[in-house]
């Protein structure tokens, strides 16, 4: 039953670079759009708020797969320009998850106590300085856990790139392996799931580390449970919660 395992694993792993590039690219674009969109949602200018709201609702409220087809199949008809499949995928993943992320950023910024704004105003800091130096560093601590969720969802969404011919892990399985090793269909899909699981655990490990660093930065010790878990994942020097 496991005779074909090495072949199956190696064919699936051929799709790994595409999956990883789509994930990392999608996350990078998501972060940029989340902060841009989230801060725009809080803008003092009505038109900016409205524009950000339209973006969030449009991309959060429509199907990701349909968005992908729009960018890959419909846009070329309209503007006569065909994006490379992988970059079309990164664009859709970023636009879609950035819409969710914008709400995460907005909520986290709003959760910073009003007293912090007032402390910053009393020191004559400009609105940009208040946001960048005082509010955002505190808000980031609140953003990290929901962003962890979002990034894992983004990773799993990369599977839809198989619809537009990107040879990522799912497409390798469905298009290459299933026709040739049909009798091993259970094994193929178990390995496929495991690949996504490992990637998801990696994302979580990185995010936990960032959570811990951010909590230390604002003088909050992470709970002992969180600390143990990060230490279990290895690679974190015992900093004692940053008591300096």
């Amino acid at each position: 039953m496991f005779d074909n395992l090495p072949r199956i694993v190696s064919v699936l792993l051929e799709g790994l670079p595409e999956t990883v590039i789509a994930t990392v690219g999608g996350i990078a674009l998501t972060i940029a759009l989340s902060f841009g969109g989230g801060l725009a949602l809080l803008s003092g200018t009505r038109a900016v708020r409205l524009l950000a709201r339209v973006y969030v609702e449009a991309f959060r409220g429509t199907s990701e797969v349909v968005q992908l087809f729009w960018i890959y199949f419909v846009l070329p008809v309209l503007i006569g320009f065909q994006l490379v499949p992988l970059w079309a995928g990164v664009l859709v993943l970023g636009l879609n998850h950035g819409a969710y992320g914008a709400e995460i950023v907005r909520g986290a910024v709003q959760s910073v106590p009003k007293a912090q704004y007032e402390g910053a105003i009393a020191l004559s800091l400009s609105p940009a300085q208040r946001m960048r130096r005082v509010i955002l560093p505190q808000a980031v601590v609140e953003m990290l856990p929901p962003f962890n969720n979002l990034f894992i969802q983004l990773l799993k969404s990369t599977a839809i790139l198989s619809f537009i011919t990107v040879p990522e892990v799912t497409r390798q399985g469905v298009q290459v392996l299933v026709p040739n090793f049909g009798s091993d269909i259970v094994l193929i899909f178990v390995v496929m799931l495991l690949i996504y699981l490992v990637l998801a655990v990696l994302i979580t490990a990185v995010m936990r580390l960032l959570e811990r660093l951010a909590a230390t930065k604002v003088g909050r010790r992470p709970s002992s449970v969180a600390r143990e878990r990060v230490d279990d994942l290895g690679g974190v020097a015992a900093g004692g919660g940053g008591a300096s």
Partner: protein
Amino acid sequence: MPPSSSTTTAEPMIVFDGVVKQFGDNVVLSELDFTVAPGEHVTLIGPSGSGKTTILRLLMTLEKVNRGTIHVGGKCLSHMDKGGKRVPADDKYCREVRKRIGMVFQQFNLFPNMTVRGNLIEAPCRVLGLSKEEANARAEELLELVGLSGKIDEHPTRLSGGQQQRVAIARALAMRPDVLLLDEVTSALDPELVAGVLALLRDIGETTDITILCVTHEMGFARDFSHRVMMFDRGKVVEDAPPSELFTQPREQRTRDFLRAVLDRH
């Protein structure tokens, strides 16, 4: 008893002129007029909800007046001159006026994402344009004044309430303000930490010529720190007198009632 400041010669540092402030239908300050001379220490007392803290928040431009004007150092807080016309103050103008005013809050409002040093040098560097070295020297000097020299690289969250409030006082002083607003600065502290913070404020009052406006429930402190005490009730000044008069022979029944209630508590 501090020497009474001369109110006759100098331009007043703070002028309230017909100030009205309301939140919805609730009139917090009604037609308030008063002046504070440079270097004067004025304490605002009165029952909660009488508008004392609102006065400090208006001065810090954390709130806007509904009617009337406030001038600090000759500059209007709510309006500015633009091509000879009086227009609502923009953000840049507000920041310029605010530089002369410092505030210490009941809950300290230190920035937890910075160390004590970061809290002290952030605004001097970014707002006043001091170099890192200058700002650091100033921070060290002020921490020594407030008795926290060893804590410069601590996180504020690891300090006691009294220590945090000392840092907050040092942070306000690092901007070298002309006017310092103290908003119930000992109300959130454990009783045994109050005396130390008040002693520090007395020291600052004696060694600097900063104009200080103070809201407090510490009547002993109000008595020996202030040049003048203003008793508020329902957004109006009930009585305005030197502490020697107001605490020993209050003219108004309302003041007598309030003082009896406050002093009984102790």
